[in-house]
């Protein structure tokens, strides 16, 4: 339910030269989280929105910055301690976050479909948008489930680092889901019949 009419285009930050076709299309106003600064990241923005609780976005932003700081600190520590394999260690925390989310994205999901009075767990492909959402949600869920003494940024940093190299609870959760889908493959035809 958008305030804008359907023919309005999304704002784009690309400065291209050939845009003759776009000159007739009205554009939606840039939202207040859009910016062209070097610190801007679409994935980052989404994650901030998921971290936010009760509209306290500035706190969520702070938490994510702190997370990135922790990630960078640990990575630099590793870089110093590492002897020979210095090239394999990524320090860029945004890149690490991207890797972590890509690694945690599921392909299939189980959805309950009722046939003949019995509910079947049917594997269903996940859309791209939903897969990103699930990956970030799992990361956050894992980070929020923690000891009393551990601060969220710290835990989130660990989870991201784990997921970025294909380990940890989030990746395990994804693999579990995939395994379950695999074992329920016999019901896959209930999706369309």
């Amino acid at each position: 339910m958008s305030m804008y009419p359907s023919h309005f285009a999304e704002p784009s930050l690309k400065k291209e030269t050939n845009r003759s076709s776009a000159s007739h299309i009205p554009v939606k106003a840039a939202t207040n989280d859009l910016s062209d600064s070097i610190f801007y990241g679409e994935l980052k923005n989404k994650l901030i929105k998921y971290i936010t609780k009760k509209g306290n976005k500035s706190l969520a932003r702070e938490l994510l910055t702190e997370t990135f700081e922790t990630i960078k600190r640990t990575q630099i520590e590793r870089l110093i301690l590492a002897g020979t394999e210095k090239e394999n260690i990524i320090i860029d925390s945004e890149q690490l976050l991207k890797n972590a989310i890509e690694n945690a994205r599921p392909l299939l999901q189980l959805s309950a479909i009722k046939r003949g009075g019995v509910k079947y767990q049917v594997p269903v492909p996940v859309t791209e948008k939903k897969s990103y959402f699930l990956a970030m949600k799992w990361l956050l869920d894992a980070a929020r489930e923690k000891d009393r003494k551990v601060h969220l940024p710290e835990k989130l940093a660990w989870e991201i680092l784990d997921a970025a190299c294909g380990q940890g609870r989030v990746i395990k959760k994804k693999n579990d889901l995939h395994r379950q889908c695999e074992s329920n493959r016999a019901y896959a035809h209930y999706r369309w019949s």
Partner: protein
Amino acid sequence: MSLRVLSVNLLKNNRNFIQNAVRNSKGPGVQALALAPYATQVTVQATPAAVQKQKVSKAMKAYLERAKEHDDFMKTQDLEFQIGKRHLANMMGADAETFTQEDIDEAIAYLFPSGLFDKRARPAMRSPEEVFPARKAAEFDETGRPFHSMFYTGKPNFFQLLHDIVEETNKLYDLEERMLRRGNKPDENQKLETAGFQLLPKDQLERVLVEHIADIEYQNFTNAMDRLISLPYSYKSKAFIERYLKPLIDQSKQLEVPKPKIDDQGRQYITTYECLRKTARADVTVRLPGTGKITINGQDISYFSSEECKEQLLFPLNYSEMLGKVDVEANVEGGGPSGQAGAIRWGIAMSLRSFVDQEMIESMRLAGLLTRDYRRRERKKYGQEGARRKYTWKKR
């Protein structure tokens, strides 16, 4: 003066009256007619030859009666309109013969200033052809047989249009196949350019067809047209397609860029007033040779404590590569920090147009910097916890 007001009122009253008359006169014998009981003035004058004949169905008789009534009504309305116009012209001290619709609107706005928000609710005087929608001509002959094969669909013009679209599409399919067999390819140069066009909106299409159509029917129309346009040989039926296209306004040339003024220090400056976002309101001044100084209500950029708001202020400056080249002064009031930042952002972007080239303006437009963000807080609804959230459901 009172006479003119009377004529305006009369227009409305008579309209109701005629609608009631139409409703009441629907007897059992005119059921076929109930679908389209209207006629234009033109048809009424063309029909008398048919009236002479012996065999006139009841439907036709009723139709003719109604058409005549409508015709008379329109005549009186037109007369009243002419009288009203003459009075108005006299009152305004203008010549009645050369008094145009624009003059009428102006005179009414002057003589009857109205504070009503909705423009349609304000007093108006327009020619009866505009006020009363066009009606359909007779759709059947004197024996009651309809002319159109799709008469009993209730919307013959609309379904005829759909039929025509499909016919064109099939023609193009055939053509494509023949061309494929011959090994020809569609001409790339002649390709149909639809970038600056839009399909007719629903209300305009309804006016063209003189029929009311449902949303889903309009969707059927757009789907069929889209398919026709997407065909590789669509340029062959260009004339047909263009009848249902409407040119769009060129957005890049819509807003005029103001010329910068010179202040007492010899610097160029532009002030944008009424920069609105949410409930915040700002006026922003941008001065050209500058050092990148930002003043908001007498403070610098630390007026905003959150990072997001600061980023918002720098967004248009950074995007147009004017950061550090201009000075910005802003006065804001109302709203919260994010609304205020948004208002100033829009003001800066609008002012910067005077200092950058056309291409950059277009880039800024596509980045959504020049669009006013008119989204507002959504109201809370009764029976709900908030704007969208419902109360927790409890069985008892």
